[in-house]
C-alpha cells in the first residue's frame, strides 16, 4: 500500500489534475449544451450517445495520467528509490497498476460528477447517469492495466497511447469486428449499455453484445495481461 499510495500521490499534481479533469469533463459539458432544449427522454438518449462518442477525451486524460505512474519515476531518475527496496516484482506491478486504476477512477468520478450535474440541469432522469459512471469506471480500469505497463516500457508512451486510442479504438475498432471485441472502450460500453435502461450505444458497440458479465470478464483478462507484462518487464528489463 505504501508504494501504491506514493505512486498515486506523485502523479496527482494539482495543475495536471485540474487540466485532466477538464478534459475528462468534455463529454459531459458537450451533453449539457446539446441536451439543453431537449425533453427528458431525448436528453436521456443523448447522454449515452454523446458519452460513447466523445468519451475518448476521458480515455486521453486517463492515458496521460496512467502512463506517468512509472514513466515519471524512470525519466526523473527516481526509480532506484522504489526499485531497490525489498518489494517483490509482482507486488510492485500490482501497486503500480493499482495506483493507475485509482488515478483513472479519480478522473472517472470527476467526469461523471460533471455529467450528473448536466443531467440534473437538463432535467433528464437521474438514473440516466449511472451508465456513464459504469462506462468511465470500466474503461479506466482497462486503460490503466494497459497504459501503466506501456509507460514503463516505452519512452514516448503518450504518443504511442494516443495512436492506439485514435487509430485502433476510435477508428479501426468501429469497422473491424475482431478489434471491437478487444477494444477497451467498447468493452466498457457493453457494461454501461447493460446497466442503463435508456441506452443507445448504436454502432459504437460494433459486434459486441451488451453484458456486464462478459465485459467484466474481458476486463479481468486485460488486467491479468497488464499485470503479467509489467511483472515481466520489472524483472527482465533495465530499470534505468
Amino acid at each position: 500500500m505504501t508504494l501504491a499510495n506514493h505512486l498515486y500521490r506523485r502523479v496527482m499534481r494539482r495543475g495536471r489534475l485540474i487540466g485532466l479533469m477538464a478534459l475528462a469533463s468534455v463529454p459531459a459539458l458537450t451533453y449539457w449544451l446539446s441536451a439543453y432544449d431537449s425533453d427528458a427522454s431525448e436528453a436521456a438518449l443523448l447522454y449515452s450517445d454523446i458519452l460513447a462518442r466523445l468519451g475518448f477525451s476521458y480515455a486521453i486524460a486517463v492515458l496521460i495520467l496512467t502512463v506517468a505512474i512509472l514513466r515519471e519515476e524512470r525519466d526523473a531518475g527516481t526509480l532506484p528509490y522504489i526499485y531497490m527496496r525489498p518489494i517483490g516484482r509482482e507486488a510492485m506491478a500490482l501497486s503500480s497498476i493499482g495506483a493507475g486504476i485509482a488515478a483513472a477512477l479519480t478522473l472517472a468520478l470527476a467526469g461523471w460528477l460533471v455529467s450528473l450535474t448536466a443531467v440534473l440541469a437538463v432535467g433528464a432522469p437521474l438514473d440516466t447517469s449511472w451508465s456513464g459512471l459504469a462506462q468511465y469506471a470500466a474503461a479506466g480500469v482497462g486503460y490503466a492495466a494497459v497504459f501503466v505497463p506501456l509507460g514503463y516500457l516505452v519512452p514516448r508512451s503518450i504518443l504511442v497511447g494516443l495512436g492506439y486510442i485514435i487509430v485502433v479504438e476510435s477508428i479501426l475498432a468501429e469497422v473491424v469486428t475482431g478489434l471491437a471485441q478487444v477494444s477497451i472502450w467498447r468493452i466498457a460500453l457493453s457494461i454501461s449499455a447493460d446497466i442503463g435502461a435508456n441506452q443507445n450505444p448504436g454502432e459504437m458497440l460494433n459486434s459486441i453484445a451488451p453484458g456486464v458479465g462478459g465485459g467484466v470478464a474481458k476486463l479481468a483478462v486485460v488486467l491479468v495481461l497488464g499485470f503479467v507484462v509489467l511483472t515481466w518487464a520489472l524483472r527482465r528489463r533495465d530499470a534505468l
Partner: protein
Amino acid sequence: MSDTIVVDELSKWFGPKVAVSEVTIGFGPGVTGLLGPNGAGKTTLMRVIAGLQKPSQGSVSILGEDPRAHPGIYQKIALVPEDEAVYERLSARRFVELAARLAKVDDPPGRAQRALETVDLVGPAGRLLGGFSKGMRQRAKVAAALVSDPDVLLLDEPLNGADPVQRAHLISLFKDLGSNGRTLVVSSHVLAEVERMTERVVAMVDGRLAAVGSVADIRSAMTDRPRLVFIEATDNRRLGAALMSTEGVIGVHIEPSRLRVEASDAGDLAKRLPAIAVATGVGLNRVEPADESLESVFRYLVEGGE
C-alpha cells in the same frame, strides 16, 4: 574475509557501445574506492551491481544472491545514485520516511530521524527537496540509503556538491561504516577524497579494470614506470651530476630550485642518497617522492589505457 559483492565476467553493452567489459572483481567489508575518468563505466558497473541494469553477460551476486532475482536482498543493500534526482515535492523528512516504509523497517519516523541526524540534516528536514542545494540533496539521498541500516552501500559520487565541512563529515561517516564491517563501494573522480576514505581502490578505464589493490601496491606493480623523486639540496647541480652515475637512476632534470630524479626504485634511491650527499659534500633539504599519490597512479593508469 570473503567478498560481499562478487562480480564475475561481467559485461554490459548498449547496442554497439560496450560500457563494461569482462569485469571480474570482489568487494569485501570496508570502503573501496571506484575510480575512473568520465565514461569509464563506473556508474554502469554500480547500476549493474545494484540490479538496476541487467548484465549483458556474466553475473553479480551480493551476499550470495542475485539482486534482480531476489528483491528481498534489497533489505541489506542501498544505493546513492549519481543523479541529482530526488522527489522535489517531498520534504527531506518525508523522503527518508518513504524510504524507511518501502524498506519495511520498524518505526519509520524514528529511523528517518536518526538517519537525518547522521547526515546532519535535521534542521532543514521539513523543507521541500526541490529547494535544496546539490550538497543537501546528496545528504538526503545518503540518509535515505542509511535508513534501512544496509550491509552493502553503493555510493556513486556521493560527495558531489557538498561543502568542505559536509565532505569531511560524510567521509568520516563512510569510514566509520566501513570499519564497522559494512561493505561500501564509493565511486568518485575526486581522487583526494578517495584517498582520505580508503587505501583500497579499483580503477576502471574504458569499461575495463585497470588496477585493483592499494595505491602503493598498484604503484609497485607498475614496473614500466620510473619513480619520480624531487630533491632540494644545497647544491642541486653537483648532486645531480653525482646522481647521473648512480645505478638505478634513469634521468636527472635540474629545475630552478630542485632536482627531478627518475629512478627505477625510489626506495633504493632513498637508501643510497645520504651516502651520495655526504660523498659530494651536499646538504639535503627535502626529498619527496612525487608520484606515489593516488592521483599520479591514476593518471598513469589512464594514460596507459589510451
